[in-house]
């Protein structure tokens, strides 16, 4: 066999690589497109605002949608203050020492813990040990802890991107360290932080495994009234109606998947828009 010329080997390699990229990206179009195609017919006002009935084979998703909204809000309440606080610590206070390295290792590990193990932990600590029961509170705490590493890393990145000269100016004008952070660094980093927070919450909203034993109800045709109530949630509901309920109408399954996908991807879109908008405005 004659040896390939350098140009031809480049052509072949680039063709293969392009093919690989297509193999990676094409299924994304397919999945999203197919769910829209099959699920769009199920979407109606009733589907979004009614309670399910007839063994969940008819009616709507209201309790699951409301439940997911509450859980997302609860996750934000738990994860945002601690996450931003930790990011401020790492970016503005931490020295390069053993403690800081330990914190970084802990964040990497926290990010790597399987979601179902967070579920176990939530069950052991919040549901049983602290006696919150299966509740929105227990679920939010579990999801919040799971989301923490995402928020910390993105917020820290946003804070570090603020030029050092901004801090120097503020300090030279007599500002204390906290005043500098509060008045100068945080406002500049805010768009980046918000983007990170939304991306973190997006993940939490779509998670099923951590809420399996901490909050999710199989079927609960009423809305939660306190944070000690159980609730249905969209991802768990999709799991239930696609694996546990025989004879489920297919268009309801796809419709549920579509609602969940819209919920999650609109958060993704929002984060992207915020990031692009402020990136253009930034003067540094």
């Amino acid at each position, binding site marked *: 066999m004659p040896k390939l010329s*350098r*140009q031809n080997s480049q052509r072949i*390699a*680039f063709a293969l*690589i*392009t093919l*690989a*990229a297509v193999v*990676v*990206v094409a*299924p*994304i179009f397919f*999945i*999203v497109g197919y*769910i829209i195609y099959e699920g769009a017919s199920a979407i109606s006002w009733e589907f979004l605002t009614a309670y399910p009935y007839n063994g969940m084979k008819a009616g709507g998703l209201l309790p699951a949608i409301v439940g997911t909204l509450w859980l997302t809000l609860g996750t934000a309440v738990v994860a945002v203050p*601690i*996450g*931003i*606080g*930790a990011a*401020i*610590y*790492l970016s503005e206070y*931490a020295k390069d020492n053993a*403690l800081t390295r330990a*914190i*970084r290792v802990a964040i*990497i*590990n*926290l990010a*790597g813990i*399987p*979601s*179902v*193990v967070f*579920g*176990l*932990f939530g069950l*052991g600590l919040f549901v*049983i040990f602290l006696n919150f029961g299966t509740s929105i509170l227990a679920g939010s705490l579990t999801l919040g802890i799971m989301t*923490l*590493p995402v928020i*910390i890393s993105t917020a820290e990145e946003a804070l570090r991107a603020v030029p050092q000269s901004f801090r120097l100016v503020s300090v030279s004008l007599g500002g204390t360290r*906290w005043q500098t952070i509060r008045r100068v660094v945080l406002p500049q980093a805010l768009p980046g932080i918000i983007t990170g927070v939304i*991306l973190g919450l997006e*993940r939490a909203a779509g998670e*099923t495994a951590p809420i*399996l*034993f901490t909050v999710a109800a199989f079927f609960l045709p009423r809305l939660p009234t306190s944070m000690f109530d159980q609730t249905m949630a969209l*991802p*768990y509901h*999709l*799991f239930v109606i*696609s694996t546990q309920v025989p004879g489920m109408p297919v268009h309801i399954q796809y419709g549920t*998947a579509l609602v*969940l*996908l819209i919920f*999650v*991807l609109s*958060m993704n879109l929002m984060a992207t828009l915020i990031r692009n908008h402020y990136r253009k405005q930034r003067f540094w």
Partner: protein
Amino acid sequence: MTNEHEGQQKRSLSWVEFLIERAIQVSGISAIILVVLIFLFLIKEGTPTFLEIPLSSLFAARWYPIEEYYGLLPLILGSLIITIGAAVVSLPLGLATAIFIAEIAPEWVRDILKPFVEVLAGIPSVVIGFIGMLVFAPLIRVALDIPTGLTAFTGVLLLAWMALPTVVSVAEDVLDAVPKTYRDAGLALGMTRWQVIWRIVLPAGRSGVLMALMLGVGRAIGETMTVMMVTGNAARIPLGLRDFFMPVRTMTATIAAEMGEVAQGSPHYHVLFAVGLTLFVITFAVNMAAASVVFRQVKRAERMLS
């Protein structure tokens, strides 16, 4: 305003600052506290297993909790086969996609592609499991002419695909981190762009590629919902190539499927926590290894600069 007043104001401000800075410090170490807390709770609920069930039973080949068979071997091997399979498929694909995005694609293609990879990262695993069950598994069943499409193979393909955003983004960072002067030197010597990528960029970033692989593995071994929905969940020991096209059951799927139905404090409950503890230890080890690569890289970069 009198001096006294000013002094008071300043003191109250510094008091508030003191509190805020303490709160920031506590948040700072929250990650450490949480990892330790998670570890302790898994130990607290998981270790009673080793008192209740003899080790020989735990390492037996049969998992059938209703009749008190708690052999973990099929679950561990199930997770292993799925994870290794997913890593093997996902590394070359992810690396190729990263090369495409970073080195080959024109700017406008890149601007479209990157958000799409992020979209993939955002699709909930239960949705991918759902499509896997309804669309993908039947395709595989027909294409390979096997009794069920819910197999290890199906899980591997979907999982490999789901691990891609992680692999791609880490690999992209790696390619970015290789200094431009390296490339310029190669091109100046008359190498083609592909030769530069293959002979210079990839070798220079190999420790980062290793890290991409490890993080992808960490992502794959912990994935729960998709795996539970598409692998069929039969707790049998996968031995040969044929088992690859049969149902398997992973550690994560076992916890997710069974924890809801066990009595709190029963042996079955404790075993499931022990499985969780095992997962925690494995992902911890994988991530520590990945982290050590990062730190080593930083050190090397510092040495080169000094």
